[in-house]
């Protein structure tokens, strides 16, 4: 990623992130070298805590995609997968990771040491179709890996009942037995409780960090969204809690001292859908017009509070809720969440990223857009783009739409 495409980071703790990312990927490689089992899994579920509690190293192929975008590897990965026959109309995460495992992964000297080969694949049933298909492709690429075919009911959050929870718990137990049978490692419930306590602490810290974004001026913007990395990859670890504590302290200090992202904050914005990983600098684009992206839908999905007294049930609930919270499984709940966030964060305007690489998040946006206008009189703009594939993004179109939108917002506020 060229310099202007990287976001401008103002938090000191954001700058620490490079070290954490490097350490995480180094740990993944070390685990492999030391013979600790490496499990590839989709994010947004309660399996991560089970992995850390059982000394299994979790690896997230979806999270590797933003890394590839940051290092400019995506075009090469796309070329490999598209040459294999994968259509450009399929999600960019899918094309990137399939391209990577069938291309660059076989070469030496990939950034951050690359990904270690999996010993275990947690293939999801449920979640979005592209992620399920990613894991089917990984099964083909890594035929020696032990495969656990997971199942999870896809239910709107407001409709989740005991039947769904019981089944999700049964699936968690089946998964624990599978890991034990595959690796010989048994689950120590005290260790799991400790992991769940840490995960819950990370969520509490995350919520607290987000709450400081209610301050005017806002102490940090979506340009620092990279801090989410620890919520994706390190939930259930002391490292995540320590890092988030430092972020919280810095953000609190900035909020309380009135130190904002920009000198003269005029317009507070909300971003819906996944960022453009190859151009995080877009989040700084709004600043020229006095705008700051104060909140996002995507960052909310990583914080699901837990009850350490009922760790398995808590993890099952986390698995059930995380994906619906941001996807078309639960449009009503998402709408409620966005509207509440717009009230709480004093939002002036919303940016909907109509994301060609993500049908589940894009579906429902128009319903939310209408509700914003009708219930809160908050205007919004649609940006046509793609979270992975730069070929589906036009900077000129982005600028035209955003400039007009920012002018309109400024007019409304009397600037």
């Amino acid at each position, binding site marked *: 990623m060229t310099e202007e495409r990287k976001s401008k980071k103002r938090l000191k703790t954001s700058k620490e992130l490079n070290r954490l990312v490097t350490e995480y990927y180094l740990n993944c490689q070390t685990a492999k070298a030391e013979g600790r089992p490496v499990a590839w899994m989709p994010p947004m579920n309660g399996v991560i805590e089970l992995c850390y509690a059982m000394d299994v190293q979790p690896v997230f192929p979806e999270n590797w995609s933003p890394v590839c975008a940051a290092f400019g590897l995506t075009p090469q990965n796309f070329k490999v997968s598209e040459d294999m026959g994968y259509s450009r109309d399929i999600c960019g995460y899918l094309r990137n990771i399939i391209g990577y495992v069938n291309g660059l992964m076989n070469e030496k000297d990939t950034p951050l040491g690359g990904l270690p080969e999996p010993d275990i694949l947690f293939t999801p049933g449920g979640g979005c179709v592209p992620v399920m298909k990613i894991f089917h492709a990984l099964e083909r690429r890594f035929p020696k890996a032990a495969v656990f075919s997971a199942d999870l009911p*896809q239910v709107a959050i407001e409709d989740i009942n005991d039947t769904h929870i019981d*089944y999700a718990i049964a699936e968690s137990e089946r998964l624990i037995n599978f890991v034990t049978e595959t690796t010989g490692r048994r689950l120590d419930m005290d260790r799991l409780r400790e992991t769940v306590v840490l995960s819950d602490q990370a969520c509490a810290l995350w919520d607290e960090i987000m709450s400081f974004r209610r301050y005017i001026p806002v102490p940090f913007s979506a340009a620092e969204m990279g801090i989410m990395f620890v919520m994706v990859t390190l939930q259930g670890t002391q490292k995540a809690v320590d890092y988030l504590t430092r972020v919280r302290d810095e953000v609190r200090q900035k909020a309380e001292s009135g130190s904002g992202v920009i000198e003269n904050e005029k317009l507070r914005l909300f971003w819906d859908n996944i960022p453009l990983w190859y151009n995080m600098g877009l989040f700084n684009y709004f600043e020229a017009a006095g705008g700051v992206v104060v909140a996002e839908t995507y960052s909310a999905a990583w914080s699901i509070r837990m009850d350490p007294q009922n760790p398995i049930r808590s993890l099952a609930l986390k698995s059930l809720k995380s994906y619906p919270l941001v996807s078309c*499984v*639960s449009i009503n709940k998402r709408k409620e969440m966005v509207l509440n966030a717009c009230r709480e964060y004093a939002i002036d305007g919303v940016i909907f990223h109509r994301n060609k690489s993500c049908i589940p998040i894009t579906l429902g946006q128009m319903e939310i857009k209408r509700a914003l206008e009708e219930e809160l009189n908050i205007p919004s703009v649609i940006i046509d783009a793609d979270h992975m594939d730069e070929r589906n993004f036009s900077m000129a179109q982005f600028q035209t739409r955003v400039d007009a939108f920012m002018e309109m917002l400024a007019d409304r506020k009397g600037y």
Partner: protein
Amino acid sequence: MLENLIQPFEAAINQFKKRDQLEKVLPAIGYFCTYTPIEVIHAAGFTPIRITGDAGAVEKAYAHMPDFICPFMKRALEKALNGKYDFLSGVVQGYSCDAACGAVNIWRDAIGGGIYHTLPLPYNSNPEARAFYKSALNEVVEKLNALGGSFSESKLDSSLGLYTEIRNILLDFYERSFKGDLPLSTQQMLTLIEAGAVSSPEAYLDMLKALKTHLRNANAEKKQDIPVMISGSLVEDPTIIEMIESSGGRIVADDLCNGYRQLVPAAADGGSPVDRLINRYIQRMPCPARSRAEDRLAPLIELMQKSGAKAMILIIQKFCTPHLSDYPSLLKAFKEKGWPVLLLELDESWQPGGQIKTRLESFFEMVGA
């Protein structure tokens, strides 16, 4: 003569398109995907009606969906926004793909009225998954009963019997067609199946029985064109079928969700009607939205072999992630078998255009060489 035999089915479709004599199917529940357990809907006293897109333009639906959604879902919503599905008491949808999942919720918001329920079908078949399936079915039954339905296990038994008989007749037609012994074209088979998706199953079964009697001694005309199988989700317009058949191909089998795929198996064993229902849906000839490409290969290879097809044409609705994701694996496996594959993507107009005609002609030339 044959046209006369198909006429009642065409009449049923046309009548439905005009929303004429709707009382024959009321009260009705709509569904998108053939994984929806229509037997339960029927046993509760509703006629299950398959929602379709059909060829046409998309205008109003773009106020609710982006353009990169499959034509089926965009057009279905367009029709609903134009009041074409106002007669439904709701939508029950067996969970399949992301677009269908979102569509149910968008319909609830944009169309309203009745029930909108996505059934979270399990992906596994272990005892816990089956127990969960039962609970998920109970939830549907409760909602249908609250809507005025009256479900019972004995009614489910009858509904299972009815749909099994329907599927058996259609599968019997397919078996004859694989042997080149059925005097019906692919388009006529798709017409038969489409009529079933919009009629009461009782009336539809009578129509099928009459047709079966008429076709008992009828012979098929032998054709020399290149035998091919077509595969995809729904083919919602005959133009592409006609184009394949006018370009040197003869369709001898299909793996379509508005064709053969939804019929297999016709029924399954089990202790209770609910068990039989669950077993059938678990054993379904797989759809790419719910399975690995590898799981689809065995039934596809079997279809190729028993129909004598020499190549496969994938007719994909534009932006259909499940089918597009399986394409590289199917292509590789078919190549290994020596069967050429052609991928065609079509938008909501369902008009293939000259370029596709040229591709088809070159494809058949290559296969026939």
